């Protein structure tokens, strides 16, 4: 084994260890929260103004294109949150750090919410554009599977009394579900689907007019800030709940 990757890994892990101390994490969370919350509110106000009012209609979808500004960032976040959740789960499994498990646990319902928004707004767009609410093509089906993976992950946490065993089982499910992420992203390229291929992250560059890309990116920023804000809030609650249960157990023992 060459030393360099391990030295880098050790350096990151020592930096991580400092923030992995729950007390330090809680203090950092308290300092970050007002910033991310106001950034989220500001981006939503500006983003929704551009998305719903100050952007042009599409040449063939007319006003229906505005659904895209809510749908596409939700889809990105659905994938991104899952990737973050799986990374935290891997850290939890390998380094056995409870804060990693709690971060993944705190992120899951937010990711499930984004996936639901993506599915619902997609159906609302599909009806006027395609002529159907839902089809079982590879893209739509794989996103539905992602939604069920989030629900299964959340259910597994509830299925065990011992938080250590629950974290382990849930982390393994989260990691198995990672294979679904490339399937979702590339389903539109690998197979014939009703869903169109990617418009923004393509090798040829965005296929969206700049006047429409701007509201989309503002909304994506707003979604990201929303995720950070709610994640901090939920992580704080998880840390405090874990401490409370440790105290309760300590008092119950004679």
């Amino acid at each position, binding site marked *: 084994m060459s030393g360099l990757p391990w030295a880098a890994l050790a350096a990151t892990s020592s930096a991580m260890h400092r923030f992995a101390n729950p007390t330090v994490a809680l203090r950092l969370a308290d300092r970050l929260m007002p910033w991310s919350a106001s950034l989220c509110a500001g981006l939503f106000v500006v983003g929704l103004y551009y998305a719903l009012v100050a952007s*042009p209609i599409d040449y063939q*979808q007319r006003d229906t294109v505005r659904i895209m500004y809510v749908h596409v960032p939700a889809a990105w976040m659905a994938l991104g949150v899952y990737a973050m959740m799986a990374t935290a789960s891997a850290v939890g499994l*390998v380094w056995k750090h409870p804060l990693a498990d709690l971060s993944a646990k705190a992120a899951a319902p937010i990711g499930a919410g984004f996936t639901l928004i993506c599915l619902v707004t997609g159906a609302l767009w599909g009806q006027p554009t*395609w*002529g159907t609410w839902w*089809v079982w093509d*590879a893209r739509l089906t794989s996103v539905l599977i992602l939604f069920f993976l989030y629900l299964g992950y959340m259910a597994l946490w509830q299925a065990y009394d011992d938080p250590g065993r629950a974290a382990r089982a849930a982390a393994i499910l989260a990691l198995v579900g990672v294979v679904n992420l490339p399937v979702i992203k590339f389903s539109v390229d690998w197979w014939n689907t009703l869903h169109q291929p990617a418009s923004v992250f393509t090798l040829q560059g965005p296929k969206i*007019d700049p006047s429409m890309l701007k509201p989309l990116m503002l909304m994506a920023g707003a979604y990201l800030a929303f995720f950070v804000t709610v994640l901090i809030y939920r992580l704080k609650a998880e840390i405090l709940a874990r401490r409370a249960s440790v105290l309760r157990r300590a008092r119950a023992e004679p």
Partner: protein
Amino acid sequence: MTRKRRRLYVLIAALASLGVASALVLVAFQDNLVFFYSPSDLQTKSLPADQRIRIGGLVEAESVMREGLTTRFRVTDTAHSIAVSYTGLLPDLFREGQGVVANGKLGPGGVFIADEILAKHDENYMPPEVADAIKRTGQWKPEGSR
């Protein structure tokens, strides 16, 4: 080897084999994962007659004929094309050059009898003025001709 490092290796090995296994499964089920066949697929694949299938492609230019509620047109993938007949209301985006997916059965005489037509939307979004400007310069490419 520390226990942490061993757990890391086990995790990487497990994820790698899971990835390979899923890739093999997806390749094996390739034919079941496509939402529709292209007109060229119909030429090369021998599909059992009377089976409900979906075909997809572009509505061929100057091929649309309407008789009452019945619409006849050809669906092309620029290499091959197939005649389609459909009775019913068409989606708003249906027009010549547009991507469509037709659900139905191959009828007598090689005509595809569709009972559902879905419009496909491409990945391009632009305001009407931009679309008009591109059409004026003659750079307009019908979708799917990539």
